[in-house]
């Protein structure tokens, strides 16, 4: 049996009925991770996972683990704290850091009988859109190893795409789950802000960050979200939410397609795939209308001002005192701070800290940071207005398919602009998913994004699931050896 051919839910059913053993599944994915040539992994938790596999098998046999994903190994983005397993944020600053506690999401996964198997490569401190800012080297796209896998959950998308992992947890601040999912031809879901506890997620921008799943399909994403969601006393922004399902009836669905998704700057293959996907949804009874979204022009400046500002504050904790990289060339305490931080952080991280410091500094705070927060209010109101008349908004996830390695980092601003379709959902706290909807002329995957109203995660997942029942782009696997 080739385990890669199954979704996580399908494989878990086989474990539950005794057709396969947890140890066999875990052993298989250890081998896949060890053989990975996309640089998707930073740590493989081999011994501990094999030990735990036996414990989980006993728990399933004795009826203690009853979750629909019990027995499944999961890969975790390396900015989520895992007790006794190195958690590096793909940075020199934390390359030697091993947490002494689990993130809340990890405890929830383990209580449901899943096994934390690997830690995934990513953009440093989740800052990047290509996977190339990692201290441990870029992650390659399994569809074409000369191309990027996207970011910042680069390893998560690449691993699920190549079959080296069944399911993964990523994080999304401006598109970091959805964009690499789009580039790698897999499904990535960012829940409503507050659905999933951020305790133990190493912070980038606290008002925008959200943990979410990357998997082969929307049903797996829904199952993972149900395990990790829920109010947490350790995260005061977490919410009480309802069970999340991907099988709601979506008849009479009212879809708003964003016209900006077809403008200059969006590759033809992307627009064409989106049109075909929308036609498919129309064929099952959805009504479709094209809308303009005028405030989209202000998404990127608003996002990067707010995210950089919060990052500059969140990353001020890295001072070489209690944890993290400490320089050995300093004379004073102040020297130690500056030297440790300058050597411990990569260029993109330092750039964003400087931007954040600028927009918060005296004389510029009102013109930039306060203005961006006012813009965020305007953007959120515009989304609210659309959802008065529509159930979901559809647009491309990214204006393009994966660029070549080495093309993007020299021009930060262009790289930032490619986040145009994803950051809106973070600014307004909305649930959003990327599903494969086609391929370009070079056989590179294209993603369609479905955005829902706040707390309508089930609607988003159900539309995605329905789309995947009537299409098969998500079933294509990258050819080995490309």
């Amino acid at each position, binding site marked *: 049996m080739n385990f890669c051919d199954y979704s996580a839910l399908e494989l878990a059913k086989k474990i539950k009925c005794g057709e396969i053993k947890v140890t066999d599944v875990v052993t298989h994915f250890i081998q896949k991770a060890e053989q990975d040539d996309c640089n998707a992994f930073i740590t493989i938790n081999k011994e501990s996972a094999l030990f735990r596999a036996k414990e989980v098998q006993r728990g399933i046999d004795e009826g203690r683990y009853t979750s629909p994903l019990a027995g499944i190994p999961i890969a975790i983005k390396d900015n989520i704290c895992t007790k006794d397993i190195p958690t590096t944020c793909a940075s020199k600053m934390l390359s030697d*850091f091993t947490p*002494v*506690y689990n993130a809340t999401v990890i405890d929830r996964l383990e209580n449901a009988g899943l096994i934390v198997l690997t830690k995934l490569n990513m953009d440093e401190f989740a800052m990047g859109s290509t996977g190339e800012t990692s201290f441990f080297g870029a992650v390659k796209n399994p569809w074409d190893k000369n191309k990027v896998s996207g970011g910042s959950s680069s390893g998560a998308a690449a691993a699920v795409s190549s079959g080296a992992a069944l399911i993964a947890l990523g994080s999304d601040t401006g598109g970091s789950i959805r964009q690499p999912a789009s580039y790698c031809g897999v499904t990535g879901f960012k829940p409503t*802000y*507050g659905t999933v506890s951020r305790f133990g997620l190493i912070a980038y921008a606290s008002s925008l960050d959200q943990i979410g799943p990357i998997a082969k399909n929307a049903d797996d994403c829904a199952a993972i979200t149900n395990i990790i969601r829920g109010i947490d*006393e350790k995260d*005061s*922004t977490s*919410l009480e939410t309802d069970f999340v399902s991907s099988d709601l009836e979506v008849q009479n669905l009212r879809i708003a397609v964003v016209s900006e998704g077809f403008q200059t700057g969006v590759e033809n293959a992307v627009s064409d795939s989106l049109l075909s996907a929308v036609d498919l949804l129309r064929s099952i009874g959805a009504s479709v209308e094209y809308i303009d979204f005028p*405030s989209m*022009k*202000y998404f990127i*400046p608003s996002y*990067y*001002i707010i995210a950089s500002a919060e990052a*500059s504050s969140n990353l001020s904790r890295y001072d*070489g*005192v*209690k*944890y*993290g*990289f*400490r320089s050995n060339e300093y*004379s*004073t*305490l*102040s*020297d*130690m*701070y*500056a*030297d440790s*931080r*300058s050597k411990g952080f990569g260029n993109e991280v*330092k*750039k964003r*800290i*400087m*931007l954040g*410091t*600028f927009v918060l*500094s005296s004389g510029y705070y009102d*013109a*930039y940071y*306060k*203005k*961006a*927060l*006012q*813009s*965020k*209010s*305007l953007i*959120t109101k515009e989304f609210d207005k659309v959802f008065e008349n529509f159930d979901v908004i559809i647009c491309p996830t990214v204006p393009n398919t994966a660029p070549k390695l080495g093309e993007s980092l020299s021009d*930060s*601003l262009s790289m*930032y602009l490619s986040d145009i379709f994803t950051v809106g959902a973070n600014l*307004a*706290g909305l649930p959003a998913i990327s599903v494969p909807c086609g391929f370009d002329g070079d056989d590179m995957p294209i993603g369609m994004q479905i955005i829902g109203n*706040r707390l309508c995660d089930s609607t988003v997942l159900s539309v995605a699931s329905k789309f995947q029942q009537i299409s098969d782009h998500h079933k294509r696997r990258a050819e080995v050896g490309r």
Partner: protein
Amino acid sequence: MDVSKEQIEYLAALAKLRFSESEITEISAELLEIIEYFDTLKELDTSGLEPLSHVFPLVNIMREDKVERSFDRDLILKNAPNSGTETFVVPKTVE
């Protein structure tokens, strides 16, 4: 809008970062391009709009002021770059 060398050095001091001369030149140009792009927001009429920090209303979470178990000292010191048996060790700051 200008991002001069002095401006970069000021921001770097605030952020506790250090840049070489060539890095200052490079980052100055990069930041200028990005900040000029941020100026797009000037077109937006935001008069009367309250800055929105969180999309849901946030309520302060209170708890009883009870002493509860924290981490053992050796766990807290586990990732320290330099530590004694009981404390983090840092450069002397006060004469």
